C-alpha cells in the first residue's frame, strides 16, 4: 500500500519541480481483487494494484489538473509540466479561491452560520478484509454454489475485496489521509423462469454472510417461479432497501449549491418548502457507523453532517468552498437556507460543484419490519430490486426503470407468488410523499446508486406503466 509518508515525499518532490503559485496533490488507489462466478463456476478471477497522483497547479487564478500513475522523478516532472502548461493557458477564474489551509479545512476559521459539526469517523480499516486471499474468496463462492445446487438453481455473482487510500496535500500546509477496506458479495440465483438477488457490502468482511445471502436469493428465485402477468397501473409497493437506494439516489445530484446556481436542480425555488411526507428525514453523514468513505472532500475540507430534509421539508443543500461564496453573492442567497462550505466538493476544476454522498435516512418513529408491511397490505407488489433507472423529467424528478430479480404480488397480507416485471414511471416527489411505512434503516447496496443507509418503504400509488415478458 502507498503510505502517507511516501505520499508526503512525492508531494515534496512535486513542489520542488513546480513553479506554480499553489500546488495541490491528490492520491488515490489501492489493491482490488474480485472473483466472479456464473453457471455455478468461477469464470473470472482478477487482482490489481494501482495508485494515481493527481496534481493541480494555480497561476494567478488559472488552474488545471494532470494525473499519472508513475512516481519516478521524470514522470512527476512531466505531470507538473503538463498541469502547468494547461493551467497557464486558462482564462483567470474570478471564483477560484486560494487553497484552504489546515485550519479552514477543519472548520476552525468558520464564520457565519455553521452546519452541525463533524463527528469522529470510525476506523474503516479491517485486517480481516485485507487478509482475504483468492482461496478464501473461492471458499465463499463454493458455499454460494452449494446453496444453488441444493435448491437446483444456477448462481452468478461476485465476491470482491479491496484496500484503498485517499490523500491530499497542498502548498498551504493542508494534508489529510484516509485508508479503508471494503468487501462485497452480490448473488443472483436463477431458476427456469425466475430469479432472486441479494447484495451486501461492508468495510469489514466479517459482516458479510455468503450463505445467508445465498439462501435469501434462492428463496426469492423459488418463490417467484412461474410468474403471472398482472396488469400495469398504480399499486401499493413495498420496496426493499436496495430498491429504495437505487431510485432515491437519482435526486442527490440536485442537493448541490452549484445545481441551484445552474438552475438544473429540482430544488430550485423549493428549499424551505415541504416537498415530501412528514416521515421523510435525510442526513448526509460520513461519520455514521454504517457509512464508508473519506471524511474530507476534493479540496481537503472535512465533511460536515448536514440535514438535507427534515420531516419532509427540504432544509438545505451542500457546498464546495467556491460554490458557497458564489451563492452568498447570488440572487438566491436569501432563499436557500444556510450557506457555508460543507466539505462535499469534487476535485477542482469541475463543472458539478458538489454532492452529498453519505446518505442516511432517519429512522421512523414507528418502524415496521418487511413482514409487517406485507401483512398490512391488501393488494400490492413487493420489489427486490430496480434496474436501468433513468430520468424522464428533471423538475418533477420523474424516473423510469424496471423491477428485477424477485417481484411478487402481495394480497390479503401475504406474498402470493411471482409476477412479471414492471416498468415504472414515477416522480420521486410523489413517491416520497406517499410513504406509508418504513423499516429501520440499514446499509444497502444496489447497482444504480452508491451505498446508503436506507429503510425498506411501503409506498402507495406507485406508477407501473408497462409489463415485460418475464
Amino acid at each position, binding site marked *: 500500500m502507498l503510505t502517507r509518508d511516501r505520499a508526503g515525499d512525492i508531494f515534496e518532490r512535486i513542489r520542488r519541480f513546480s513553479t506554480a503559485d499553489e500546488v495541490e496533490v491528490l492520491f488515490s488507489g489501492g489493491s482490488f481483487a474480485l472473483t466472479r462466478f456464473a453457471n*455455478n463456476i468461477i469464470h473470472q478471477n482478477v487482482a490489481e494494484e494501482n495508485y494515481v497522483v493527481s496534481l493541480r497547479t494555480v497561476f494567478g487564478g488559472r488552474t488545471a489538473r494532470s494525473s499519472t500513475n508513475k512516481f519516478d522523478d521524470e514522470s512527476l516532472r512531466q505531470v507538473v509540466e503538463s498541469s502547468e502548461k494547461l493551467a497557464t493557458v486558462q482564462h483567470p477564474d474570478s471564483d477560484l479561491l486560494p487553497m484552504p489551509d489546515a485550519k479552514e479545512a477543519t472548520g476552525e476559521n468558520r464564520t457565519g452560520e455553521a452546519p452541525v459539526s463533524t463527528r469522529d469517523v470510525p476506523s474503516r480499516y479491517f485486517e480481516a478484509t485485507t487478509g482475504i486471499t483468492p482461496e478464501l474468496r473461492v471458499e465463499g463462492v463454493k458455499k454460494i454454489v452449494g446453496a444453488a445446487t441444493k435448491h437446483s438453481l444456477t448462481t452468478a455473482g461476485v465476491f470482491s475485496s479491496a484496500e484503498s487510500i485517499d490523500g491530499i496535500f497542498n502548498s498551504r500546509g493542508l494534508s489529510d489521509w484516509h485508508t479503508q477496506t471494503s468487501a462485497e458479495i452480490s448473488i443472483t440465483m436463477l431458476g427456469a423462469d425466475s430469479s432472486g438477488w441479494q447484495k451486501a457490502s461492508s468495510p469489514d468482511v466479517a459482516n458479510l454472510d455468503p450463505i445467508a445471502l445465498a439462501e435469501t436469493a434462492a428463496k426469492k428465485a423459488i418463490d417467484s417461479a412461474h410468474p403471472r402477468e398482472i396488469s400495469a397501473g398504480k399499486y401499493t409497493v413495498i420496496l426493499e432497501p436496495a430498491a429504495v437506494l437505487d431510485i432515491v439516489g437519482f435526486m442527490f445530484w440536485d442537493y448541490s449549491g452549484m445545481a441551484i446556481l*445552474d438552475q438544473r436542480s429540482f430544488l430550485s425555488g423549493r428549499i424551505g418548502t415541504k416537498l415530501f411526507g412528514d416521515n421523510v428525514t435525510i442526513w448526509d453523514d460520513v461519520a455514521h457507523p454504517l457509512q464508508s468513505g473519506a471524511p474530507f472532500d476534493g479540496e481537503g475540507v472535512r465533511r460536515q453532517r448536514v440535514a438535507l430534509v427534515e420531516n419532509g421539508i427540504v432544509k438545505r443543500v451542500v457546498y464546495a468552498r467556491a460554490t458557497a461564496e458564489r451563492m452568498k453573492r447570488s440572487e438566491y442567497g436569501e432563499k436557500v437556507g444556510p450557506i457555508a462550505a460543507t466539505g462535499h466538493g469534487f476535485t477542482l476544476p469541475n463543472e458539478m460543484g458538489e454532492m452529498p454522498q453519505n446518505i442516511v435516512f432517519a429512522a421512523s418513529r414507528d418502524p415496521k419490519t418487511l413482514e409487517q408491511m406485507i401483512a398490512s397490505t391488501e393488494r400490492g407488489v413487493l420489489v427486490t430490486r430496480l434496474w436501468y433507472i433513468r430520468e424522464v*423529467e428533471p423538475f418533477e424528478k420523474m424516473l423510469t426503470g424496471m423491477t428485477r430479480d424477485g417481484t411478487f404480488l402481495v394480497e390479503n397480507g401475504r406474498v402470493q407468488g411471482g409476477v412479471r416485471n414492471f416498468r415504472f414511471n414515477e416522480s420521486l416527489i410523489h413517491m416520497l410523499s406517499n410513504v406509508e411505512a418504513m423499516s429501520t434503516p440499514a446499509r444497502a447496496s444496489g447497482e444504480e446508486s452508491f451505498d446508503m443507509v436506507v429503510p425498506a418503504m411501503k409506498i402507495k400509488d406507485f406508477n407501473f406503466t*408497462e409489463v415485460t415478458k418475464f
Partner: protein
Amino acid sequence: MKHVADWALNTASVRGASYADTRVVALRSRALSTKNGKVGSASDAESVGMSVRVIADGAWGFAASADLGRGAVEATAARAVEIARASARVKQHDVQLAPEKAVVAEWTTPYKIDPFTIPVEQNIDLLLKIDAELRSVAGITLAETNLNFNREEQWFVSSEGADIHQTKLSTGVGYAAYAFAGNEIQKRSYPTSYGGQWQNKGYELIEELRLVENARRIAEEAVALHHADQCPEGKFDIILDSSQLGLQIHESVGHPIELDRVLGMEANFAGTSFLTLDKLRTLRYGSDLVNVVADARQEHGPGLGTFGFDDEGVAAQCTPIITNGLFIGYLSSRETAHTIGENRSGGTLRAEGWNRLPMIRMTNVSLLPGEKPLSLEQLVASTDHGILMQTNRSWSIDDKRYNFQFGCEIGWEIKNGKRGRMVKNPSYSGITTEFWNSLDAICSRDEWTLWGTPNCGKGQPQQVMGTGHGAAPSRFRNIKVGSAFKGN
C-alpha cells in the same frame, strides 16, 4: 515493451500456465469543458500498466500491475497463475479457446490531425465561442460544452506467438443548452446528447461537425420547447433520427447479441438476453428491411468499435447479425465461439485500459442503410400521421432486453406528409422484436451516420467501453408513444 511481455509470459509458463497473454498499455487523455462562459474542467491524464491473463489447471486467472519493473511483472504473472489455480477449484470443465493464427502486426487508427498537437488555447476558444452562441439566445439558463481526446497504445503478446502493437485514437465533442422556466427544464444537444459525437478520428472530426454554425439553432429549440405542446399519447408511426436510432440499436440489438450475456456470465449485473441459443437462424428479429452487422473493420468507418485486432489478438471482422430480418449471428470470443458452432472467434474481446480483463463488447453494431434513395424529408413526406423524434434524453431497457422506453429531447408532429408543430417530452416504448418488425422504411446511405457511444458500461468490476452504431433515419409503424407520462 516486448521485454516486459516476455518476463510475464516466461513466468506464467514456468508456473504451469497452459496459455498466457499479456497487454502492456499506455493511455493518454485530455478533457476540456466549459459552462456558462467559463472553463469547467481542464485535465490531462496518463496511465501505464500491464496485465497477464492465464489459463492454468483449465481455469482463468488475471492480474495487473502499474509497475513495469521485472520483479513486479514476474510477481504479477505468478499471481495470475495462483488465482487461476484457485478458480480451478470451482470449475465444471476446462476452458477451451478456439484456434487463432498467431499474428505479428502493427496497426494505428488512421487520422489526419493528431488532436494532442492542437494548442489548448485553440480548443478552449472554440468551446467558449460555442458557449457564447448558445447563451446569446434569451431564455438559455445553462450552456455546457465538452471536448475529449484519447490515445491508447497497446502491446499484445501471447504464449502462442502473437505480437501486436496497436494504437487507437479517438475524439469526442458536444454541447448542450438548457432552458429553465416555470416548472420545467428543457434541453437540446448537438451533435447528440451525453457527450456529443465520438469517433476514432483525429482533430478533423471537430472541423467536420459545424459546431458553431448549429449552436444558435440548438439554443433556440431549447427555448421554443417551453411553448410547445406536450407530445400526444397513443399509438403512432414514428420516425427516429439517426442518433436516437443508434442508441436504440445499442440497447435492443447490440447488448442482446453479446454471447457472454446469452450464456449467463452477466446474469448478476448487466443481465442476460432473450436471444437464447435456439433463436439463432430461427428468430425473425425484424422486418425484411432490417440488416445489421457487427463490423470492426476500418472500411466500416471510424467508429469507436473500429480496431485492427481485439484484445486477444483476433483480427477485426464483419459479422452479419440480422440479415433481411432473420437473426443469424452473435458477438463471440475465443472461449465462447464453440457454443454457437463456430470454430473461430468473432473478434470482439476488449478491455478498458491495462488493468481490466477483456470481455465481449460491441464493435460497430450498425443498421445498414436502405438501398433505394430516400432522404429524411422524403420519408416525412411519405408519412400520413406520425411523430419525428430527435436526440436521446432518457433510455431504459429490462435485463433481458425485451421492454424498452426511450425519451427524446424534441419531436415534431407529422401530418399529411408535412412536419408540423413542435412537441415536447416525446417518448416511445415497446418490445424489442415487435419494434424491429414494425420498421418499414430506412433512409439511404447519404443520411447514414456512424455514431459513437463512449460510455457503455458492463462487467464486474464495471468497464466503460466505446462502441459504434451506424444508422439512417427510419420509420416504425404503430408504436406506443407517451406512456412515460401516463398517470403522472
